[in-house]
């Protein structure tokens, strides 16, 4: 088994998610199934192979430093779940 239920909990915390206790077993099992399958990658020798981060042979896509109007204040806040003093209101930041 690659990951335990505790590992899954840790990963969930990093992802800002929770996995209900009732689903933990099935979830951990499916997680392991995929990670076990990933073992086939170990068959390939990738020593010295450049990783592909981009398929494009493109570089230096740059923008001139010119300021432009963005969206209006109203538009910016139009989807906000809660607003206070022109800002996006959130509950206390420290747990």
């Amino acid at each position, binding site marked *: 088994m690659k990951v335990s239920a505790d590992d899954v909990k840790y990963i969930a915390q990093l992802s800002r998610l929770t996995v209900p206790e009732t689903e933990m077993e099935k979830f951990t099992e499916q997680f392991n199934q995929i990670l076990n399958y990933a073992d086939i990658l170990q068959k390939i020798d990738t020593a010295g192979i450049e990783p592909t981060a981009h398929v494009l042979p493109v570089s230096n896509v740059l923008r001139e*430093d010119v300021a432009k109007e963005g969206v209006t204040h109203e538009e910016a806040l139009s989807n906000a779940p809660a607003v206070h003093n022109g*800002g996006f209101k959130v509950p*206390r930041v420290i747990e």
Partner: protein
Amino acid sequence: MTKYITVIGLEVHAELKTKSKAFCSCSTAFGSAPNTHVCPVCLGMPGALPVLNKQVVEFAIRAGLALNCEIKKFNKFDRKNYFYPDLAKNYQISQFDKPICENGHIDVNVNGEEKRIGITRIHMEEDAGKLVHSGATISTSDSSAVDYNRAGVPLIEIVSEPDMRSAEEARAYMENLKAILEYTDVCDCKMQEGSLRCDANISIMPEGAKEFGTRAEIKNLNSFRALVRAIEYEVERQKEILEDGGHIVQETRTWDDANGVTLSMRSKEEAHDYRYFPEPDLVPVQLDDAWIERVRSELPELPAQRQARLVKEHGLPEYDASLIVATKAMAEYFDEAVKTAKDSKGVSNWMLGDVSAYLNNEGITISEFKVTPAHLAELVNLTKDGVLSSKLAKKVFAEMLKEDKAPSVLVKELGLEQVSDEGAILKLVEETIAENPQSVADFKAGKDKAIGFLVGQIMKKSRGKANPGMVQKMLKEKMQ
């Protein structure tokens, strides 16, 4: 008692002086109403994508060259993942394993000793937004409001080697760094506004130890004073722990300026796993020699060069020159004033004396100083030409602070012009000689002091306006 060695490394974040943000075209203007310089990109709206501002690269190269760094030709960006409400995408676009600059240094002078402080790396990244808390502090607030105006403003992070051994060295490094960033015009360096921020990694180790101690990272150092006080406090705190047989916890602490203490920032230790990976939305930036050399050729004069020039061209003492060049605005004021001043040293003396005293008193910087360099130069010239005595010059200076007028105009308005008219002075000399026969006799008897008294009498009669040089010369002639 064990002697300890302090080890300090600084991580400095400098907001770059671009017109638009790093990855979108929103304005970087400071101090606007919340969420008014925002767009889909910096608000992290679904589907929005970043495009890199060329000026960010330009500024990073410039800063790197000014800080004696190697400029790396291959550049890419990475995502640094962590959740925080001021981070719109919940990842920060940064540079992880391939920073644009490496291996630089700054030479500082502390108590007359030269020391080289290494710069490990400089990388480009974006700033986060701002949280406005409902209460006085983050921990006493029930809620906060997020403003994304600063989100996406470009930053460079300058990471030093742990080369500093005292608060003074850290301060000197920070002052030099600030001056260089100002000179190169990449950052406006307003620590109060947060455009220049400093975190300090501080540890102590017993003298003779081979390995550094466990370090604490101190955040929220918003002034030179805070930097120095925080280091001093933290070193004492760590010493006490070690002396009591305890051990230092590696942690992030914040500087509480009001109470003069550092405080642990985390109630519960949350894992910091940033899961960096290459930013797929941005393509690499490939620099070539032509680009780097062009930026190098456009580098302005840096503080050290300027100091040398002031010594060489203007005959200033090293120390005076170092004070003049400490801020770009001071140095520029000086350069502007000496264009018309007949006495560079005189300008420097004024600036380091009465001008600095006034600025300190008012709590302002030279950029906010109302007296123009040309007017200060004129004041220096009036003294040099003998129109004003140094005493009267101070009087005129006091008036210049009140009204924006040329010193020559003020001299006339106040009737302070030095009297250099031979006839008028001769009259006063003759009068005084007649009134003080004893002093004249003393002088003739070889008591040189007596002449000082006579000059004083004449200056009194003229209400300070007589040209003292002429008075002395004519007195001697008359009494021989």
